[in-house]
């Protein structure tokens, strides 16, 4: 009697129509190992089967793009035979179940994606979304995730230089942990994953294989229910020390001429790495699973192939290079084993104890995985909220409330637990618009940011998708860096629901428009769906990670005011847009209205202007205007300054004061300009056809507007106070 019953098929997350397809591909009933392999390869996590159709619409090319989506990470050219390799990836489901290990292994996985390609990781970022602070689980999850990210990143010695953190009740049952790594490679020494050379050895190295993480990719492709806690055994355990050794060993081996192709074992472990390498090379593999270094006795073929044990790599070596590779792995005390050979059969043949235990065609699994055109409905556009219909509050009182609200409160409590200075090239530390990391030994630097405003995406995913990309563009420009490319991490609910699928389609459409208009291609990314618990989905969260280049790092700009008596100049138009604003949510307790529209054609011009002004040395501080509007942006510049320099602001009487202060109109920057340079700046703005006006002067130690004022010290106390108070004595999660 067959042991592949409908129940077993369903437990593997395989739908009946997908099983029919498996029978056609195999020409027979699969055995359990083969079924397990199909289930992970065709999971949403590995196959992108719901999103593929739409991801293809994103722009992915530019003259400076060396490698777009489809490899382990994206690669861009930064001149001088140097390349930046980067990607962002989610570890949402495991981090909710076991926050420390879930987040830690998320960092480990994304680091491997980058150094696998021949790059030394030079910076980590993370974009985190947690539930309502009052939710009883939130504090524990924050503590565990932050400790996990720090515990891993600090030990491997890659600086964690920034990120973003939001809180909202829609994440109560599904937190988001999106980790990004940026690496530096020599352009002429990049490694890809396509296998080549029939007869070449297939080599395993790194940690041993255990029973941890079996079916992690399948778990990440399902909704949570009240039994999700039972999935704890599918969360992997990270070993950052081994990862550090793996980085050094890989880079040392890559400096020799031994490797044909290399790939890390990420989600779906040995299965996905071997299938992907073989498929990309159009070859077959024969593997003897007895040779796989194992941590436990008695592991079955099924367990070996589906294990998600961490810190493991697979590579194809050139003939006769085994000894060179083995010597390097010995030096770094890592396991090393030849486990198979490349064949020309196009099939994956697996042996265990001398018997063939699986024999599968590679391409139908890896490339011909299901692709769905799921039904979708476009979300209704919410009405525009008029400023007159929003109650006015004293601007200074509202400012204090906003600066202390969970989304805007200082995240120092988080980033102080991350080593953000190791490697000695962190020029702008966390807390500004973007991190700035010098390219070691050169005058160049990269600026790095992560951005997304989920409440805009909830209100209008199309506009929200545009805004996320535009804000990343602004944050890079505000440091003086030329924005080069984007990695995306698309987090949504269950795509089988047409309204969720509509959010996915619209957000991708918006992102695509912005990336095209801003010449800001998507070079890598990751999709995380099924972020739902008991039918409630997260706010759509297409997180954008982006990288820009500074040719001369000495010309970078920070958000901090530098001196008293300087002009404060606002670039861009202010109409007082309060729909979907933070003011509306935090002060008026309303989450309605259309989000502010992004004018992409003007966005680019403004970015160019800002970068030109910074390049010319005409700007002493620069900050984009985002959450909370003008008054929050000015307060942030004051709080970041040495000596807590204040600002006296004037507002134009044509707009209600609260709308001017807190409206979130897009495409705006605030500049600090020395009085001597003011005429030049205003002229330059006019030449670029960008609206610019002086809105105040720096000086003193208070922020004043409309006859009201608060000391910068008080504002800073409010801004810095929330998070430590909230976290109280919560112990780290480990």
């Amino acid at each position, binding site marked *: 009697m067959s042991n592949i019953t409908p129940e077993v098929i369903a437990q593997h997350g395989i739908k009946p129509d997908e099983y029919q397809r498996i029978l056609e591909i195999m020409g027979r009933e699969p055995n359990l190992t083969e079924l397990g392999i199909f289930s992970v390869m065709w999971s949403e996590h590995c196959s992108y089967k719901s999103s593929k159709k739409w991801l293809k619409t994103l722009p992915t090319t530019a003259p400076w793009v060396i490698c777009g989506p489809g490899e382990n990470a994206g690669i861009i050219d930064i001149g001088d035979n140097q390349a930046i390799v980067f990607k962002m990836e989610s570890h949402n489901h495991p981090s909710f179940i076991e926050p420390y290990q879930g987040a830690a292994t998320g960092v480990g996985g994304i680091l491997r994606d980058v150094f696998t390609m021949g790059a030394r990781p030079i910076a980590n970022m993370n974009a985190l979304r947690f539930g309502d602070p009052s939710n009883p689980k939130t504090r524990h999850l924050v503590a565990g995730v932050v*400790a996990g990210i*720090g*515990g891993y990143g*600090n*030990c*491997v*010695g890659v600086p964690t230089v920034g990120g973003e953190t939001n809180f909202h009740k829609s994440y109560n049952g599904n937190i988001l942990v999106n980790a990004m790594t940026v690496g530096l490679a020599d352009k002429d020494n990049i490694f890809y994953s396509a296998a080549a050379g029939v007869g070449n050895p297939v080599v395993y190295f790194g940690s041993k294989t255990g029973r941890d993480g079996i079916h992690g990719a399948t778990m990440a492709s399902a909704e949570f229910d009240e039994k999700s806690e039972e999935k704890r055994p599918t969360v992997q355990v990270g*070993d*950052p*020390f*081994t990862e*550090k*050794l793996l980085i050094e060993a890989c880079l040392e081996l890559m400096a020799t001429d031994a490797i044909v192709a290399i790939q890390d074992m990420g989600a779906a472990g040995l299965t996905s790495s071997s299938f992907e390498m073989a498929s990309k090379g159009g070859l077959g593999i024969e593997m003897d699973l007895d040779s796989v270094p194992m941590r436990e006795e008695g592991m079955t073929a099924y367990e070996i192939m589906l294990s998600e044990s961490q810190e493991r790599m697979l590579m194809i070596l050139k003939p006769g290079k085994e000894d060179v590779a083995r010597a390097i792995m010995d030096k*770094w*005390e890592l396991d090393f084993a030849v486990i198979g050979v490349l064949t020309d059969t196009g099939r994956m043949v697996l042996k265990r104890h001398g018997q063939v235990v699986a024999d599968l065609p590679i391409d139908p699994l890896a490339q011909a995985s299901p692709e769905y055109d799921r039904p979708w409905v476009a979300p209704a556009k919410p009405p525009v909220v008029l400023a007159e219909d929003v109650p006015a509050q004293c601007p200074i009182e509202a400012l204090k409330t906003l600066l202390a609200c969970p989304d805007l409160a200082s995240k120092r409590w988080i*980033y*102080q*637990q*991350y*080593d*953000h*200075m*190791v*490697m*000695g*090239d*962190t*020029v702008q*530390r966390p807390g500004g618009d973007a991190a700035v990391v*010098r390219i070691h030994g050169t005058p160049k630097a990269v600026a790095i940011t992560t951005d997304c405003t989920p409440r805009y995406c909830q209100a209008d995913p199309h506009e929200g998708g545009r805004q996320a990309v535009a804000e990343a563009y602004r944050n890079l420009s505000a440091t003086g860096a030329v924005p080069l490319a984007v990695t995306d991490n698309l987090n949504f609910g269950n795509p089988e629901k047409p309204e969720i699928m509509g959010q996915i389609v619209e957000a991708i459409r918006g992102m695509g428009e912005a990336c095209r208009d801003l010449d800001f291609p998507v070079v890598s990314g990751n999709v995380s769906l099924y972020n739902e618990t008991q039918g409630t989905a997260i706010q759509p969260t297409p997180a954008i990670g982006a990288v820009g280049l500074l040719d001369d*790092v*000495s010309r970078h700009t920070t958000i901090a005011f530098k001196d008293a008596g300087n002009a404060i100049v606002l670039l861009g138009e202010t109409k007082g847009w309060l729909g979907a604003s933070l003011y509306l949510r935090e002060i008026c307790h309303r989450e309605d209205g259309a989000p502010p529209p992004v004018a992409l054609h003007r966005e680019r011009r403004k970015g160019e202007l800002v970068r030109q002004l910074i390049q010319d040395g005409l700007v002493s501080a620069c900050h984009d205007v985002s959450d909370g509007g003008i008054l929050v942006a000015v307060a942030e510049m004051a709080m970041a300054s040495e000596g807590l320099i204040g600002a006296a602001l004037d507002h134009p009487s044509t707009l209600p004061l609260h709308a001017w202060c807190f409206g979130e109109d897009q495409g705006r920057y605030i500049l600090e300009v020395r009085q001597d340079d003011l005429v030049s700046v205003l002229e330059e703005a006019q030449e670029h056809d960008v609206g610019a006006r002086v809105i105040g002067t720096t000086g003193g130690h208070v922020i004043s507007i409309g006859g009201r004022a608060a000391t910068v010290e008080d504002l800073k106390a409010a801004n810095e106070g929330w998070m430590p108070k909230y976290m109280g004595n919560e*112990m*780290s999660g480990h």
Partner: protein
Amino acid sequence: MKAAVIVFPGSNCDRDVAVALEASMGAKPLMVWHRDTELPQVDLIAVPGGFSYGDYLRCGAMAAHSPIMREVKARAEAGVRVLGICNGFQVLTEAGLLPGVLMRNSGLKFICRDVHLRVEDSETDFCRQYQCGEVVRFPIAHAEGNFFADDETFRAIEGNGQVAFRYCTPDGGFDPAANPNGSLGNVAGIYNEKRNVLGLMPHPERLAEDLLGGSDGKRMFDSLVEALS
């Protein structure tokens, strides 16, 4: 001056300290792998920060028993200058080259930020370019930097003037808020009795260049070059 940087598996500030040394020395220090049993003739041995052997046992405990440390101990006893930073300080205490231990931070968390330090002795080869009592700014980045010693040992450390740096406020005061990790006596760094070995938790090599936010740390490396060249 000739210098060597010891590299353990899991060291991750080895390059950083080498860069800072090179900037002051004008030449690259030698990088010495932990399995080596021979150490070239050098004037300074730096034991860098990081997570040697993952710090899976006590911090620095495994590294203290690695082959190269026998040689480092012998040189230290012969008077060669040894500088241990962060994990390097932990290794030197585990190896018995410095008194006391580094325990888990009192707040139980990893802390990465700049701190202010008071220079307690400017007569040594490590600190001759500082003023005694001067306040300097170095970053810390550790979870186990809480210095502790038993009463007798601590009295001896204080009595011999072995404290090199103490955590302080920006104007040199010692209020408890200026102590980031609960260290006894606000101790951030100590010498051995002969003052040829210095261990400190803060990272001078991380603020040795204005572009990175300050250069107070550079004077430690400049001091060593001045003293040992």
